[in-house]
């Protein structure tokens, strides 16, 4: 019951939170120098043509009025139109956001699978060879740029070994993509029972996801290691040792206490990677949401950027809500 009330209260706050985020996003985008009318009409445009396009786009009105119009349209599900793709932003994002989500989610799963076990292993025994590998890896993962690692992986697994398809897009061009349900090609192809499409989608997904996984395993590893070490040295772990509890049990209890900080870093990375995976998206011509937003910023294309901000804000708020529910389940102190 308390849980339902809690979720209800959280959901209630989402609307004002989103409004605030959109306002800040709006002001930031507006403060970028560059005039979309000039970019749209090209270098030969006359001042008259520019002025009339300004009126048409509503750019001659005051900033608060422009914001009000945007919010009003938003309420009707209209996120504006991108002048680059000449399509409604909502349509573009519905297509591209799942692509990024699919990539980032798998990337993060791989990061967790690499980072958490290595972090645990190095926390157990600081002098083991596994701990040394983990330390070295933590350093490396923190200092390598992701696009560089992506290129190295492409060189190894595509150019040299030919294990994966060419790093162009999300599926072979010769294949018909499965009918969109979730927008994630791997899931959709499974739903459609289309095995060749599934194989191709996984083949395209694996390298960019591995890139993200290898890079982001670094912070997860570090967080796992440090919070686990802290918990193993804490009074209650030492008390359990004092009580002659087997090592296995002490470690399991310590892990439960370390879990909240590990979950936190994962959730932060998840929200961050929606936009932060853009370099990897570019290297693999992924056509994701991050790429879309960066194009928008570079070309003074306001609405795609705002749409992206809105989408990732909703996503992050959702992730944080889930994380809070996980805390709820782990730690009895929070529910009081």
């Amino acid at each position, binding site marked *: 019951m308390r849980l339902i009330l809690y979720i209800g209260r959280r959901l209630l706050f989402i609307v004002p939170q989103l409004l605030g985020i959109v306002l800040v996003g709006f002001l930031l985008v507006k403060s970028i120098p560059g005039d979309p009318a000039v970019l749209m009409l090209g270098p030969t445009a006359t001042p008259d043509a520019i002025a009339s396009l300004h009126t048409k786009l509503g750019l001659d009105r005051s900033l608060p009025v422009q914001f009000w119009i945007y919010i009003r349209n938003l309420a009707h599900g209209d996120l504006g139109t991108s002048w680059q793709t000449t399509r409604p932003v909502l349509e573009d994002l519905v297509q591209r956001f799942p692509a990024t989500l699919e990539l980032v989610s798998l990337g993060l799963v791989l990061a967790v699978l690499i980072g958490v076990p290595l972090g645990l292993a190095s926390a157990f025994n600081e002098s083991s060879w596994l701990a040394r590998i983990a330390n070295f890896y933590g350093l490396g993962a923190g200092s390598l740029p992701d696009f560089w690692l992506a290129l190295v992986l492409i060189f190894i697994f595509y150019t040299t070994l030919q294990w994966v398809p060419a790093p162009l897009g999300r599926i072979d061009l010769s294949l018909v993509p499965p009918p969109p349900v979730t927008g994630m090609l791997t899931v959709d192809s499974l739903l459609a029972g289309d095995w060749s499409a599934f194989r191709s989608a996984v083949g395209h997904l694996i390298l960019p996801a591995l890139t993200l996984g290898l890079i982001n395993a670094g912070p997860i590893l570090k967080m796992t290691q440090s919070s686990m070490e802290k918990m193993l040295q804490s*009074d209650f772990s030492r008390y359990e*040792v*004092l009580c*002659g509890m087997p090592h296995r049990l002490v470690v399991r*209890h310590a892990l439960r206490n370390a879990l909240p900080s590990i979950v936190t870093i994962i959730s932060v990375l998840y929200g961050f990677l929606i936009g932060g995976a853009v370099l990897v998206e570019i290297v693999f011509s992924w056509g994701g949401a991050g790429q879309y937003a960066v194009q928008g910023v570079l070309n003074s294309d306001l609405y795609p950027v705002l749409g992206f901000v809105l989408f990732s804000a909703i996503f992050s708020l959702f992730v944080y809500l889930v994380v809070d529910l996980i805390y709820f389940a782990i730690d009895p102190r929070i529910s009081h």
Partner: protein
Amino acid sequence: MNAVDAALMVERLRVEFPVLGGKPKVAVRDLDLSILPGEILGLVGESGAGKTTLARAILNLPPPPGRIVAGVIQFDGKDLLRLSERELQSIRVRNISMVVPNPRGELNPLVPVGEQLASIARVHLGKDKSSARAMALEMLRAVQIPDPERRMRAYPHELSGGMAQRVVIAIALMCSPRFIISDDATSGLDVTVQAQILELLSHLARKQGSAMLFITRDIGITAHFCDRVAVIYRGEIMEIAPRESFFLSPRHPYTMLLLAAFLHNPQLRQAWTHPDASLRVNPDAGIGCAYTYRCPRAREMCHTIRPPLAERTSGHFVRCHFPLERE
């Protein structure tokens, strides 16, 4: 007293804390101590005297970064300092248990207290799940926790300090260990609760016939519960005697200071404090007597010769060249 009689015997135990770029700091200095079966031995000293270090070192778990560099801890015909981790696991709590201070920080915050108790019974007594739970409940009852069925499901943060202390006592007594170390068990509690808890602890320990090392900063408490009393100063035993002898004719100047402080007697306190030493520290500990620099009776030889812990009257040992004479 020989090794066969004693429940636990500490011989020449030395625990050091490494100091960055210097000589290690000695927390417990070549300490000898033996405790008879069923005996309650009080150990009194100011903070930093090495009480907790000694307590934890007995279980071969000196507080990090401390290291046991020498010594023997005889228990049950074995030297605890030379056992494997696995052998130690089967002795801790099962045969030697410890009541810790600040128990709310020592209990795992995410595990219900009933489960923490039950896991002790499962691990050390090989009980199955349901009888372990039954035993946990019985222990909560034995330490007089009100409404024990409900407390089984409580998390440590839901308990008061006194209740958490009772839980820790329940854990310490669960396996009827032959030896219990109580490390300043009631420091965080208010006086009325303190008395109840101590009463309970000593009552249950006596009932089980467990020997106990009762560590405290409060010399008054030892007068109530202990068969013998020892005074520790900077890692060394300064005086150790049966209770009556200890309180009726204390022999060591430091003991006098502790008693004066306990009695809130300013004149007596002043008499036993070195005139210009508020808290001077012997710079060359280990050569002379550790107490020289605070001792109003110190003479030339106290600075150069470390006094032995010598038996002055039957069972009454004093580490002092010039102990007080009986009046």
